[in-house]
């Protein structure tokens, strides 16, 4: 019971065999993504759309989680989503490149730009890194706004990917993407690479002293994060069929960070729970209109005050409580 709960939270027990660990970790999420959600919402394009948003946003948040894992508060994911969105938009509208090629291209460009910018910037820590990445989001928006040839404008009429023309199809694609992203990050986090990340987060100097190439691992983590942001941006560009400089702003970057926080930074599943939780909460709060955002703010403070280590930190607590009650 406890083991499977740990697995759900992205912390599969280490002693388990490779394949069964992967399955145990993926199955619960896969069951929700492929089973529960389509069954619940099959005939409701609106909710499917919300779930699609949740899945793609989760994918981007997972990247941000990875930079948390190396001890950096990253508020730049919006910038890379914007970059990825423009790459997909330009390739598909100007050269008619297929969506299935645009997406890897978005990932690649975002990763390269992320690596190039990250290499020097990742030397900064703490709030300095947070602030400078926040500036980066704003800089990226302004760069596209002032980019020659784009006329300060957005790109419209981005073709919808072939085969993904129903909400259910796009949702299933997004769910698969998310599952793949989850597998990627989970594997990174639980393999030796994850331990290296953790060691860097806890003490960079000590990590250096035992021969870990801290600078390189930092860049790798940041580039993977950026690539995931780029992919998410490319997906949304195709889903909405447009991209504008204002499509991703500082508040989007802040949201990605918040999703991770609220879900819980100690769990790979944290960003997914945080994203879906907040996206769904926001939709449910729609019925109270103007107070929606106000309540959203209050909700966040309440979570922070009472579950400072994320919503998932509730799981172990509950398990302990009920486990004790049972025995």
């Amino acid at each position, binding site marked *: 019971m406890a083991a499977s709960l740990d697995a759900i939270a992205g912390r599969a027990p280490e002693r388990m065999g490779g394949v069964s660990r992967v399955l145990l970790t993926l199955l619960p999420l896969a069951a929700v993504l492929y089973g529960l959600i389509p069954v619940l919402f099959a005939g409701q394009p609106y909710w499917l759309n919300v779930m699609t948003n949740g899945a793609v946003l989760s994918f981007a948040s997972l990247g941000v989680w990875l930079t948390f894992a190396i001890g950096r508060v990253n508020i730049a994911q919006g910038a890379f989503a914007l970059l990825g969105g423009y790459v997909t938009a330009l390739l598909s509208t100007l050269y008619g490149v297929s969506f299935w090629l645009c997406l890897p291209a978005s990932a690649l460009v975002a990763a390269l730009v992320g690596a190039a910018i990250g290499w020097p910037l990742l030397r900064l820590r703490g709030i300095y890194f947070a602030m400078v990445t926040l500036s980066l989001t704003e800089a990226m928006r302004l760069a596209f706004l002032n980019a020659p040839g784009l006329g300060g404008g957005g790109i419209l009429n981005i073709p919808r990917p072939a085969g993904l023309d129903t909400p259910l199809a796009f949702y299933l694609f997004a769910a698969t993407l998310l599952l793949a992203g989850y597998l990627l990050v989970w594997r990174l986090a639980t393999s030796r690479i994850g331990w290296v990340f953790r060691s860097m987060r806890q003490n960079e100097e*000590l990590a250096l002293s035992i021969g870990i190439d801290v600078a390189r691992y930092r860049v790798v983590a940041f580039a993977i994060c950026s690539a995931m942001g780029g992919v998410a941006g490319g997906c949304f560009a195709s889903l909405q069929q447009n991209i504008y400089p204002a499509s991703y702003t500082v508040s989007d970057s802040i949201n990605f960070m918040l999703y991770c926080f609220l879900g819980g930074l100690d769990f790979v599943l944290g960003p997914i729970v945080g994203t879906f939780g907040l996206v769904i909460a926001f939709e449910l709060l729609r019925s109270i209109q103007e107070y929606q955002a106000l309540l959203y703010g209050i909700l966040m403070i309440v979570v922070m005050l009472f579950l400072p280590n994320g919503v998932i930190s509730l799981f172990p607590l509950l398990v302990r409580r009920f486990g004790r009650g049972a025995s």
Partner: protein
Amino acid sequence: MTLLSVEGLTRRFGGLVAVNDVSFTVSEGEILSVIGPNGAGKSTLFKLIGSFLPPSAGRVLFEGAVVSGLKPNQVARKGIVRTFQETTVFKEMTALQNVVVAHQLGVTASPLGTFFSSAAARADERRFRDSAAEILDYLGLGHVKDVEARNLPHGYLRALGIAIALAARPRLLLLDEPFAGMNPEETDRAVAMVEGIRKRGVTVLLVEHDMRAVMRISDRIVVISFGSKIAEGSPEAVRADPAVVEAYLGKDDETIGH
């Protein structure tokens, strides 16, 4: 055979010269101590050798090759591994995880192999776990290997710090004030530990404030004061050197309180 040679090492901070033209060598298999009063520049010297700071002048050679200018992790790869003062460990990992992760230099699997948990990667992990358990046992930490480092009693953290360094398989181990804050009993144990490390084939360079322990274990001692080397030699020679006595020991204690 000379393992490490420090040649004319100098480091300035603004107008202050923290390390001034210091030269010495460390032979393979010896225990060499650098001592000096507080603020003498020991820590700066230490950082310069480990490449945590770039020198203003001079250079450090390891096995005949220049290592100053490399990054600390590259220096570690060459075989120079340092410990830290106080309690520098990975606080949110267990003792075992601390030491397992410190085997990074011994990884044989490719990054992709590591990611996909290839046979090589699994073999690596098995090897690291065994080696880590051995090191922890050797340093008397075997019974706390599954305790998270932040919950470990204070006294164990320094040993864990050394365990982490040993996991990186150093040829030259730099120990930063390994005896600071220890009572005589603890110091005895630590001295035995350092001697044991030398027996494992590791050359030791230590920086220390506590004269007594240093006198017991060092083959040679380098004394620095105000950034400059003022003496070098066997413990007996250094102890007898009037310059050392004056700069370091001051006058007799009996004047206190009178």
